[in-house]
């Protein structure tokens, strides 16, 4: 019987040591905010924090976690960086289907906690492991910057009716 600390709560779980955390969270504990996208650490949908670090829960055997603290999307809003990121995500209206977004937000929150004012290269390094099939990357970049600086990133690119464009 393992005991996992998830979002500040202890969960005793009776599962094999090599079972990936993702399935323990989703199917045993019942926290379904963390998503399954690929199972091979290529998409980032399953990202959670382990002592504040972003990890891919689909390939993380629960037996290797020990007493490290697990934070999932359901509680990342309780951390200052998670709160900022979630707010920016709303302000910039990042989500589309939303399926990848738990993972995106977890990766972004870990980035902001570590690098409060990330540049493009920092964002790439932290976010490139997270795939979004809906193509929200442009807004993800904007939202991270907005979360960091508090400065509003343009929500809309220009809407215009220039000369010659009128019908």
């Amino acid at each position: 019987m393992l005991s996992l600390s998830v979002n500040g709560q202890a969960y005793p779980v009776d599962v094999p040591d090599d079972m990936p955390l993702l399935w323990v969270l989703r199917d045993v504990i019942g926290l379904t905010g963390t998503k399954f996208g690929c199972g091979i650490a290529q998409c980032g949908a399953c990202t959670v924090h382990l002592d504040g670090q972003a990890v891919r829960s689909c390939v993380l055997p629960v037996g290797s976690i020990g007493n490290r603290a697990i934070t999932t999307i359901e509680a990342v809003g309780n951390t200052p960086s998670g709160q900022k990121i979630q707010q920016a995500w709303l302000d910039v209206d990042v989500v589309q289907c939303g399926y990848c977004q738990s993972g995106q937000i977890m990766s972004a929150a870990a980035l902001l906690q570590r690098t409060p004012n990330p540049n493009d290269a920092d964002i790439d390094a932290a976010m490139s492991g997270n795939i979004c099939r809906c193509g929200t990357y442009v807004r993800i970049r904007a939202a991270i910057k907005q979360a960091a600086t508090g400065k509003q990133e343009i929500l809309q690119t220009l809407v215009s009716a220039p000369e010659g464009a009128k019908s």
Partner: protein
Amino acid sequence: MTRFLIIVVLVALLGMGAYFYLNRTDTAEGTAPPIAGAPSSADVLARGEYLTKAADCIACHTVPGTGSAFAGGVAFKLPFGTIYSPNITADEASGIGNWSDNDFVRAVREGIRNDGQHLYPAFPYTSYTQLSRSDVLAIKAYLFSLPKISQANKANDLSFPYNQRWAMGFWNAAFFKSQRFTPDPSQSQQWNSGKYLTIALGHCAECHTPRNFGFGLEHGNELAGEELQGWRAYNITSDPQHGIGAWSDSDIASYLTTGHADGRGSAAGPMAEAVENSLRFLNPADAAALATYLRTVPAREGKDPITIDATAAPTLASNNAAPGGDNANADNPGLKLFEGACASCHQWNGKGQQTSYASLLGTRGVNDVHGTNVTQILLHGAGPHALAPNIFMPEFGNAYSDTDIASLTNYVIGHFGNKQGNVTPDEVAQRRKQL
């Protein structure tokens, strides 16, 4: 004219004499040092099973995944063509069911089939020649206790002259010496056991010893590393810089039996297969013996020596989640690929996340400026294997270009090995063809 003919005949006779002299068979039965996993007191089948595993027969005689055990058919792509391993189950028609003990022993130790034809040295009779008759027969007994599989052998696909089996007699004359293992009384019993495991059963030299122009093993350069079938078999001499001299006993034991040693790397490719099929079954005492022997293998630099930088500056300057201290700028194509597909497991500090198998710092792969094994692993993936059934690296060869793989490999060498990798897209294209 007559004189000339006499000379020709004399030379021919001398040649024949030499041929037969060099091809002479060691007639000794041979004795094996004690093997902890196969004590002589044990049942012959139990011994046979252990020895079969220690000799890794299954790797070459079973098609991975789909094939029946020991039914052969595994392809070996050599520079001069493809050969297929034969069926060694006890099936009379397609296997070796009607081989006598002597047939079997001769094949294993001399490389000659029951019909008198030569075997190719892809079959390591060059190493197995050291085995004792009793051990060879234990293996035979074990194989014959298994289900007979009726599966016809595949014809080899070799070009002339390599398809001339008789010619192997000359190869043997040049490069093969029939010789049983003889214990060295000046060394410990453990050392002798280890040597037998390394040289005879484990046939480590077949991959790890450099080969000469004629594909013969370079004696005198034992275990100093070689490239084979597109993979680099590393230097496992006691050289602390280029070999495994700096590894602790537990590093070695762990690597042999789990395919991974922290800070040393994880086995992939053929070595992973050897761990999976063979080495992981070694009894701890035997693994320790093997390590004991390896420690005494004279230190050699080998060719294209790999110098490990276990404290690569760019890696140490990075944290788990972000790079630091790289010469590569943010637009480096290798870096971009790494941050997309690799960093979430390997991490920028090379520590490996989710599993220690993903750690890179201090491994030989990332310190090899030719990027041989890194390229292979990227192209073909690694694992999972039996001991770590859920640990694997996906293959990227099908969706990533030669240039992608080359730039990624060079980036990895730069970042984790602190060296300039020199892999070119062309080389990656060659590697693709090798497997």
